[in-house]
């Protein structure tokens, strides 16, 4: 059987602000034996517009994205939030000739750790992370829209890391796209609640760039905290060292 063909969608935030993390996602995908392509015209899933109520704009972006992502066996995103947009919301938004396309793409869309665990059956990734203590931040949309909780933990533990319990692991970091700009004081307090409850760890890991930007940004301002790292980078580091 030929290897599965995966279209890797770097996402808007990923391409510019988490370039190495997306590259590490690509490396992981190749490592597990899939054929990776990066659709040239895939820019943004439309979620910033969708969440803020700009439905028409969101539908245009989601419709265009469905066109450029169509064709591969799987669409994989290094973001739970964007994956939830493509999988859960785009099919309800996109109308007309692109509606079928949006539904088809949605069925094939997975967040990176979902893809590795659920579709590729990856549970072990060596023991390169042995001795590392990490806290895992569950992105809200991975957790409550994709209903994905265990997959990232499976991979981290499967690479030897210890995932340390964190009281606020499943609480929102306060990013929420435009939310953090519209209500910066509340958003900051939400990040503080996460940081104030953080156990002693070597790194905080998450599958979402937006959350990492928020948490790292707040920790940086406070002048404290461990590194905040993307799941793909941590996993690839475990594999490649």
């Amino acid at each position, binding site marked *: 059987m030929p290897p599965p063909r995966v279209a890797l969608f770097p996402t808007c935030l990923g391409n510019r602000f988490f*370039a190495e993390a997306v590259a590490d996602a690509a490396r992981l995908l190749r490592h597990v034996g899939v054929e990776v392509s990066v659709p040239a015209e895939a820019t943004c899933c439309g979620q910033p517009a969708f969440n803020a109520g700009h439905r028409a704009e969101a539908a245009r972006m989601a419709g265009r994205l469905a066109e450029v992502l169509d064709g591969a066996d799987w669409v994989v995103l290094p973001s739970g939030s964007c994956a939830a947009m493509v999988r859960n919301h785009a099919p309800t938004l996109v109308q007309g000739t692109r509606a079928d396309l949006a539904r088809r793409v949605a069925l094939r869309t997975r967040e990176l750790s979902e893809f590795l665990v659920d579709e590729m059956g990856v549970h072990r990734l060596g023991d390169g992370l042995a001795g590392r203590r990490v806290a895992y931040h569950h992105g809200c949309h991975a957790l409550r829209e994709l209903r994905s909780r265990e997959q990232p933990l499976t991979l981290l533990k499967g690479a030897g890391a210890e995932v340390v319990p964190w009281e606020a692991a499943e609480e929102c970091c306060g990013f929420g796209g435009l939310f953090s700009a519209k209500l910066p004081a*509340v958003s900051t307090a939400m990040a503080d609640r996460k940081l104030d409850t953080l156990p002693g760890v070597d790194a905080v890991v998450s599958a979402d760039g937006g959350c990492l930007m928020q948490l790292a940004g707040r920790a940086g301002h406070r002048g404290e905290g461990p590194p905040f790292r993307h799941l793909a980078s941590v996993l690839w580091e475990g594999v490649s060292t």
Partner: protein
Amino acid sequence: MSGAGTRPADFALRAREVLEERPTVRAAVTEGTLRAQEKRRKAFVGLDEEAWKEWARATKTHLLGRLDHYLLEAEASLVANGVRVHWAEDAPQARRILGGIVEEAGLSSAVKAKSMLSEELEVNAFLEKRGLSVRETDLGEYILQMLGEAPSHIVGPAMHKTLEDCQELFADELGTPPDASAEVIAAAARRRLRRDFLEADLGISGANFLVAETGTVALMENEGNIRLSTSLPRVHVAFVGIEKLLPRLADLAGFLQLLPRSATGQVIGNYVSLLQGPRRPGEPDGPEEMHVVLVDNGRTRLLADDQGHEALRCIRCGACLNVCPVYRQSGGHPYGWVYSGPIGAILAPGLLGLEEAMPLPYASSLCGACGDVCPVKIPIPELLVYWRERAVEEGLVPRSEAWGMAGYTAAALNPRLFHAAEALAGVLTGPAGELLARRLPMVGDWAADRSLPRAEGPTFRELWAEGLDQPREDG
């Protein structure tokens, strides 16, 4: 106390005030909501939570689909029980009805059970203006009445207060020791309130449920004050929102188990009062008169809304407040009206009108915790997005945001333009551009309390084009 003097429009300002100037509020609300969240979780262990919720959703959906029918059935059942039924289209009419009852019976002092609807109707101020004394008898409400504050939580109105706040208040008002325990404070309140109960000739309550089939007004509580408020005074007036109906008594049996589990993590409240009308000849206690005021106050308008109507299934358990990370920081007061938290943000556009409710639909990061916990499966996150869409349609968001979104969309549909914009973002978050970035609208607010991300080096697409051969340090 009503929420007079505050309004939803000030949410951002009020939330910032709370966070910066009253840190004990955030501490108390965080502690209170976490405790409630954990108790709720434990209360559902061993139950098929999903099946319960689905049953409750279906029951309320059925009710709301035939509300006209059930309202008339409820009226007939209540009348058969000897209850006088009144219909109030809005808050002024509800107050006029109350005024008429007060006048007719010659009433002078009221005790009040906790009722969010009575807050919505601003009953206290109305009665006080007419010369009646009004005593809140729920401990939390009593505390807030003394302080002149509005409730900040649907179920725990004084959740934002610390024990220290209460010690100070009760030392001043009732002479308790400055280090009094919660039990000592509660005992002092009980002694004081007993006098009010015995003196009052009017008892005011809401209703958790009203059974159409039997005319049963159901009230659940822990302190016993509701039972006293509804049975000791000569006249009892219950304000009931029209969405509080249940079709049959058998439905009540289910909801009496679901509500306390969701609200306080209890299997059942300490007191459940099922009121079947006023005192009958030969009965030793109960009011001489019982009135039920069925209140619309915007509910019919919300019921007519294609999507927004789902919020009317709400049974006011407060579970969505307890899990909401926004509410957990701000408490309820910044929402600027009676119902706070996620449910308040989707009731406000219906009951107040969308313009008046702004920006409450935006007071959420859309984390989804509220939707997961709702016992009647109100899709709260979807409804928040729905009201945002309506706000955009009706031109209620800043024009700069609409333009910004149009520009962003145009760029996203044109990859070359998009990558040029990415390059600009890279400059703005680089060391040279940051000073400029910090002066931009929105970005500047964001960066005031956070470090901006660094976007130096190649983009992923540039790395991809190079073939990913050279692993670098990640950002």
